[in-house]
């Protein structure tokens, strides 16, 4: 009897280590694909190490981020938040790692099942966004009052639904952009993109004036390099806030006497270094899991539409990429001004979310409304991704007080949706909503007539 108990407690210890858990998931995937022994060993161990790399990156990132919050508070007397998915996920994984790994694993299974049995044939293949969404759901379901198996079940069903609906709402715009129905967009900012596409429709008379007809300087390609753009924005924001907070406060309270501007420069760099390490870890973790998912899902769902990462649409309108980034960023600065006036928490415009989501909003806005649609659509996208985090923060529990949060629109929308339900009626409201949504998705022929209309 005691040996049995010992065995169980070791098992619980193993499964509560997220690094071991994701390695086990990778192992299952590799075995299912009948890989040879050396590939299995390599894959499982890399996944294991990858998770530990993410946790180490979180430590460096936190050192780079925490003085920023204190300086911002001193300078402006309100709290400032820099939305960055990698940062918040790495911080959250310390406590929610096991649940995140399990929600991700079962959520991918739910995604395949939905694609198999409903008319939504989307397989969401952007692995890092799946991981980040699993992490946010692990936090929200815990704050809502779920735990253990119900938490994982609710999180996984929610994740599977979001992985299907996010590409689905964008598909009418994707058909218009790509001219076919074979590929979907798998990026959790679809709400922002769809609204950009709709905004573009307001200008459909000027659709012929495409962004691609103008000569546009292309010298901003370096911003696509995420290390460069993260370091650059964090340093600029740090230095501006440092100038407002003043040298006396920083050198006495935070920097231990080091010159306040040098301190800011180093901390901005540390933040970028932390994100760099976390990204390497994420890459290691996903390297085996996503190909297995892709292989298995294409076998089970014959006519699946792969939902792929956002840069796949950038080549359709390279000028709109830059126009969209600028316009979205200006939308972010505009929103920041409104937040100052209203006295809420300040959401600072990060270059990374505005670049990646603004660019996509620009491309889709251009597809529906030309230059005017591109500018207006991505400006609206910038406002959306600035204001959503304000309402997301309260449903994230303790993590709402970190100086960073989830950046892209779908995180905001789904987080606020489930968090608000839980606030009004507790976990049962979430369970009912998941059942209702799944029920609606199972109806074979709904109002999806646009499918034939837009082609």
């Amino acid at each position, binding site marked *: 009897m005691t040996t049995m108990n010992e065995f169980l407690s070791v098992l619980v210890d193993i499964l509560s280590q997220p690094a071991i858990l994701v390695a086990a998931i990778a192992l299952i995937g590799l075995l299912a694909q009948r890989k040879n022994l050396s590939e299995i060993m390599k894959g499982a161990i890399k996944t294991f190490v990858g998770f530990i790399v993410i946790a180490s990156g979180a430590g460096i990132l936190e050192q780079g981020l925490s003085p920023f919050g204190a300086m911002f508070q001193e300078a402006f007397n309100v709290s400032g938040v820099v939305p960055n998915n990698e940062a918040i996920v790495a911080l959250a994984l310390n406590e929610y790692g096991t649940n995140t790994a399990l929600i991700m694993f079962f959520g991918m299974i739910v995604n395949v099942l939905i694609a198999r049995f409903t008319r939504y044939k989307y397989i969401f*293949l*952007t*692995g*890092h*966004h799946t991981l980040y969404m699993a992490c946010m759901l692990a936090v929200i379901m815990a704050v809502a009052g779920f735990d253990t198996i119900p938490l994982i079940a609710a999180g996984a069903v929610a994740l599977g639904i979001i992985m299907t609906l996010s590409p689905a709402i964008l598909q009418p715009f994707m058909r218009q952009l790509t001219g076919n129905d074979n*590929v979907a967009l*798998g*990026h959790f900012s679809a709400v922002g993109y769809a609204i950009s596409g709709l905004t573009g429709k307001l200008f459909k008379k000027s659709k012929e004036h495409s962004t691609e007809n103008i000569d546009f300087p*292309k010298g901003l*390609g*370096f911003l*696509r*390099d*995420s*290390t*460069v753009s993260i370091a650059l924005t964090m340093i600029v924001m740090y230095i501006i806030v440092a100038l407002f907070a003043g040298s006396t406060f920083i050198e006495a309270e935070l920097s231990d006497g080091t010159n306040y501007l040098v301190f800011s420069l180093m901390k901005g760099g540390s933040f970028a270094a932390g994100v*760099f390490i976390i*990204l*390497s870890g*994420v*890459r290691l973790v*996903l*390297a085996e899991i*996503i*190909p297995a998912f*892709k292989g298995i899902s294409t076998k089970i769902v014959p006519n699946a539409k792969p939902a*792929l*990462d*956002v*840069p*796949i649409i*950038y*080549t359709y309108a*390279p000028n709109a*990429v830059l126009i969209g980034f600028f316009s979205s960023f200006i939308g972010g600065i505009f929103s920041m001004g409104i937040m100052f006036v209203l006295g809420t928490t300040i959401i600072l415009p990060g270059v990374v979310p505005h670049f990646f989501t603004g660019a996509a909003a620009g491309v889709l806005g251009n597809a529906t409304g030309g230059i005017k649609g591109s500018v207006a659509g991505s400006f609206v996208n910038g406002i959306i991704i600035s204001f959503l985090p304000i309402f997301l923060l309260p449903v994230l529990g303790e993590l709402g007080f970190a100086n960073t949060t989830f950046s892209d629109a779908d995180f905001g929308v789904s987080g606020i949706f489930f968090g608000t339900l839980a606030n009004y009626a507790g976990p049962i409201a979430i369970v009912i909503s998941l059942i209702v949504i799944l029920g609606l998705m199972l109806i074979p022929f709904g109002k999806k007539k646009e499918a034939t209309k837009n082609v």
Partner: protein
Amino acid sequence: MKFLAVCGSGLGTSFMVEMNIQQILQEIGVTGVEVSHSDLSSATPGDADVFFLAKDIAEGGAHLGEVIVLDNIIDMDELRDKVTKVVKEKNLI
């Protein structure tokens, strides 16, 4: 022989291109090529023999050496043509 797919953050797009290259290599029966993916900052010329980049970051990756630029990263036919051309040049088939 090593191929490296590169994109801005080294997470989604380059990973997809990597999986597609692997699929193509399997289809045309080439073995012994290691394929992996990376972000633009980390990639250095010594990392691989051939680099695959999307058109929009081609400028930023010009220093890498033998660079294959993909006009449309979801076009399997284009990728198949370009991969086949490279493996022929390298005498792998």
